């Protein structure tokens, strides 16, 4: 098979995956999620557990150590069959607390401590590095196999060049789909779908090679069994300690591996999917392992002495001239490697950005959280992290020489991530677990792993000298890396696993018992351990009234973007029975907001950011009482009472608002008449006085002209006022005649800009527009809409206080609704006045000279109501901002 064809095939395959991810993403964007979030896709995505190590390495493993490879499948199977105890709880906690990664889970559980987040992130990156190197190695090796097998003189590709291309390509793919947006749920539909497709490819590949071996090369299962008996594999004996250790190890890894946590918990969209996965995933694993032994046996028999058993899946069909099958096997291996690297890179990048970059950035600028675009920063840091993670993997690959057996590298990683197990399991089952315990346990466990397994993995004399291996550092024999505390003769892997887990768990328990948890930790501990009892009524950590809703909104916008934030705030305000975009900063609301932000930047960072605005988190006595109270009945009863009380509070609030509105209306009516009287009499006074003066005669000509001019101007002002009043009354009665037609929005804004240029023409005034986004046809009353635009632009020209006044006009179109925002760079409108400005005769300043009677915005509001839309003040921008919303196509009311 020509090498070029291979490269082409892999490229075509990547492009295909790319299209799958893209299509899924598009579908999800349109809201048509459907089967994209089904139990099947969920189960298939879990197969990132089966990496290139499983795909190629399992055969090698079987060839070297017989049935021991089964342990790697048995561990996860046990975990999934027993999903009711651990997995279900993890998923529930993950969804309730909007956990973004395993680092976030531990940091959130132990009092939103960022220290733990950092520790876990470092462990994860360290442990994933050899694993990623392993994937690069397997892809590189498999390329090499094809090249060396070609008889017609294809030069073997330089393995360094291949691996660097593979690493760069994977980084690009991951960045493209893993960091497209900063989602509140941190879910990546496109990537997950592509992973599911890869899962199918690798399964089909393994099954195809297996069938070929069993029925093509041998004479069916019976013959295979006979061959097994004849081979050296029959002589293999089970070592119970290694078996137990490996089963435990792979069980731990399936929960603790960052990439598994990502697909298992973070990407989970429905808890019920877990029930399906609990039997389907073990089945998948079984199918993957079904043909491992036959391939190994036949490979050992047919392949020349000394050939790498890790590559039998590939070399066996190739040596039999089955180019197509080999190609399929190659793609299967390629799928295994890429799916692992992509998910691992996303998971690690989220951790690095949320637990290292963001806290660091927050510390650097403690004064104002809200300045600068956090969103871009988070995305950028994730992209860089993905690059860095792959670069690390590549570096390890180069350093370690890429020569070891695949399985050995994978197990090193497993022991590393297993260090998180005690803190994690303790955290979700034991209320007494504390941050101190978790930190000490993790640090100790990782140190042992690093010293006894990770460093020696680089090979003799690479990092640790052979002398030190044999005699211990400085000749201290009980510190020998592979014989700690004088325990000699143990398998190095089991030795490291044993000591790291014993010390880790011991320190974790001891530290937890001896230390005292802080208030936030206590609250979180209860929320995690009792996640099934206290659904939805999590304890609150915030006291009322210290945070300003608008500040919170500005901060949220920097992280989630304008649309999502405004949507969330509006919904929350509505739930409180308030109109507009700003809910009251109740503890409940702040708590919800914190969880929303935690979904993007992690619990610790979200907590720190809100603390800066809301003051320190205060855990009240009631909260602690609630936490301490074990009686579920009382909790439930009080929850119900609270719910009723909430309902009553909402109703009372609506009643109060309605009453207030009625009182205001009557006051307003009086005020309105009085205002009209004032507005009419003022110009009339000038007209009457000057006309009397003129009638008396005896005036120089220029005075006559001047006073005549005054009379003229005031008469015009009077007319304008009457026009406005009539307009308003027609609009308010709803008896207005609308002339609907199709008009381009850009033309309307053009007209409005031209018409309003007469207002304070002497001022420098810049208008920023995006002409392409404005280019759309609206079915509406174009004159009326233009009237609203003129009003808003004129107001900005009149009232914007900035020296170099600027106005931004932003048009957006979404689901049949069009929004047009007018945002200037002045000082904006104070919060208590934001509702008032749309009332008749409301003028914030006493500058009556600004012209107009204060009816402009009231008219705008009525016009928009008639056009089936609305106009509102948009809080949280830097200057004054108004948002006009209207339907793209207004249908005439019947």
């Amino acid at each position, binding site marked *: 098979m020509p090498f070029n064809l291979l490269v082409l095939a892999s490229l075509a395959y990547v492009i295909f995956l790319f299209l799958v991810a893209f299509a899924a993403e598009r579908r999800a964007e349109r809201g048509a999620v459907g089967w994209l979030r089904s139990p099947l896709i969920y189960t298939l995505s879990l197969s990132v557990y089966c990496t290139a190590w499983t795909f190629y390495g399992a055969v090698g493993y079987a060839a070297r150590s017989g049935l021991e490879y089964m342990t790697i499948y048995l561990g996860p199977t046990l975990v999934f069959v027993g999903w009711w105890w651990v997995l279900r709880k993890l998923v529930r906690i993950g969804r309730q607390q909007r956990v973004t990664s395993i680092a976030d889970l531990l940091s959130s559980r132990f009092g939103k401590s960022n220290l733990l987040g950092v520790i876990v992130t470092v462990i994860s990156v360290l442990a994933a590095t050899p694993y990623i190197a392993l994937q690069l190695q397997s892809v590189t090796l498999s390329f090499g196999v094809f090249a060396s097998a070609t008889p017609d003189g294809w030069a073997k590709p330089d393995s360094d060049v291949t691996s660097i291309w593979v690493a760069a390509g994977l980084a690009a793919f991951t960045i493209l789909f893993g960091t497209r947006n900063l989602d509140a749920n941190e879910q990546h539909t496109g990537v997950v779908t592509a992973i599911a497709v890869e899962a199918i490819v690798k399964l089909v590949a393994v099954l195809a090679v297996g069938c070929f071996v069993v029925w093509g090369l041998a004479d069916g299962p019976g013959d295979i069994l006979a061959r097994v008996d004849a081979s050296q594999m029959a002589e293999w004996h089970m070592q119970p300690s290694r078996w137990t250790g490996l089963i435990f190890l792979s069980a731990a890894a399936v929960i603790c591996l960052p990439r598994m946590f990502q697909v298992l918990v973070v990407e989970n969209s429905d808890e019920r999917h877990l029930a399906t996965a609990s039997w389907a995933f073990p089945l998948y694993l079984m199918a993957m392992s079904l043909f491992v032994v036959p391939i190994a046996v036949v490979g050992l028999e047919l392949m020349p002495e000394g050939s790498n058993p890790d590559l039998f899946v590939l070399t066996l069909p190739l040596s039999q001239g089955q180019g197509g099958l080999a190609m399929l096997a190659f793609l299967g291996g390629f799928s295994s490697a890429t799916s692992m690297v992509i998910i691992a890179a996303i998971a690690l990048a989220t951790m690095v950005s949320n637990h290292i970059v963001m806290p660091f950035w927050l510390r650097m600028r403690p004064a104002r959280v809200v300045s600068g675009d956090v969103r871009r920063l988070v995305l950028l840091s994730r992209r860089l992290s993905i690059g860095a993670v792959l670069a690390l993997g590549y570096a390890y690959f180069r350093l370690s020489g890429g020569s070891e057996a695949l399985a050995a590298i994978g197990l090193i990683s497993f022991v590393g991530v297993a260090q998180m197990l005690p803190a994690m399991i303790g955290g979700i089952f034991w209320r007494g677990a504390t941050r101190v315990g978790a930190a000490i346990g993790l640090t100790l466990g990782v140190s042992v792993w690093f010293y006894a397994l990770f460093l020696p993995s680089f090979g003799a004399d690479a990092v640790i000298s052979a002398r030190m291996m044999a005699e211990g550092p400085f000749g201290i024999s009980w510190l020998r890396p592979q014989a700690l505390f004088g325990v000699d003769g143990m398998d190095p892997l089991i030795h490291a696993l044993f000591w790291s887990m014993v010390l880790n768990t011991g320190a974790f328990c001891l530290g937890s018992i001896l230390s005292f948890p802080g208030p936030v930790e206590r609250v979180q501990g209860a929320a995690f351990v009792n996640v099934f009892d206290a659904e939805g009524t999590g304890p609150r950590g915030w006291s009322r009234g210290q945070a300003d809703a608008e500040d919170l909104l500005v901060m949220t916008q920097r992280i989630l973007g304008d649309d999502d934030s405004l949507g969330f705030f509006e919904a929350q305000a509505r739930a409180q029975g308030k109109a507009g975009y700003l809910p009251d900063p109740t503890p409940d609301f702040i708590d919800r907001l914190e969880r929303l932000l935690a979904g993007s930047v992690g619990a610790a960072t979200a907590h720190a950011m809100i603390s800066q605005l809301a003051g320190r988190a205060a855990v009240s006595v009631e909260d602690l009482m609630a936490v301490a109270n074990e009686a579920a009945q009382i909790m439930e009863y009080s929850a119900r009472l609270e719910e009723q009380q909430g309902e009553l509070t909402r109703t009372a609030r609506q009643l109060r608002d309605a009453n207030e509105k009625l009182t205001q209306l009557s006051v307003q009516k009086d005020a309105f008449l*009085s205002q009209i*009287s*004032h507005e009419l*009499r*003022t110009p*009339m*006074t*000038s*007209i*009457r*006085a*000057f006309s*009397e*003066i003129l009638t008396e005669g005896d005036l120089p000509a220029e005075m006559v002209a001047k006073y005549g001019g*005054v009379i003229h*101007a*005031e008469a015009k002002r009077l007319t304008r006022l009457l026009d406005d009043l009539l307009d308003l009354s027609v609009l308010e009665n709803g008896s207005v005649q609308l002339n609907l037609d199709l008009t381009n929005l850009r033309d309307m804004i053009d007209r409005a800009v031209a018409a309003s240029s007469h207002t304070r023409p002497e001022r420098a005034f810049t208008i920023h527009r995006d002409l392409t986004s404005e280019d759309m046809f609206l079915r509406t009353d174009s004159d009326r809409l233009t009237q609203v635009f003129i009003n808003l632009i004129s107001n900005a020209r009149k009232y914007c206080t900035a020296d170099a006044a600027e106005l931004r006009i932003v048009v957006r179109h979404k689901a049949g609704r069009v929004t047009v925002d007018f945002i200037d760079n002045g000082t904006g409108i104070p919060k208590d006045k934001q509702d008032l400005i749309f009332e008749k005769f409301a003028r914030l*300043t*006493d*500058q*009556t*000279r600004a012209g107009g009677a204060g009816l402009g915005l009231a008219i705008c509001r009525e016009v928009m109501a008639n056009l089936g839309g609305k106009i509102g003040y948009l809080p949280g921008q830097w200057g004054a901002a108004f948002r006009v919303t209207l339907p793209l196509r207004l249908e005439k009311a019947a």
Partner: protein
Amino acid sequence: MGRQVLVIEDEPNIAEAIKFILTRDGWRVATHPDGASAMAAVQRLQPDVLVLDLMLPGLSGLEVLRLIRAHPDLAELPVLMLTAKGQERDRQAAQQAGANLFMTKPFANAEMLSAVRGLAGL
């Protein structure tokens, strides 16, 4: 040597009209457009008669009047209150605050003249 009138009125055209009417009658007329600094203007000019609009930017005419009446030197200053609202309530409020005379806009020029003359005791 005519007498001094101070007109506190924020509408420039109305202030100009009153100024014209009174100047023609031999008064020295000063105008001031704002409520917040009105008190300072009164103290500086020490006018014989004050014409005060009810709706002023900064500080309303009523509040300016209360400040004036609270000041020992100005307690007796004759004040003509002007308003464009013309409701009975406004008239009562003005009287309570200590206005000597109350006039609704629009007014006849002769009416204005005689009111100011009457307040000055001419």
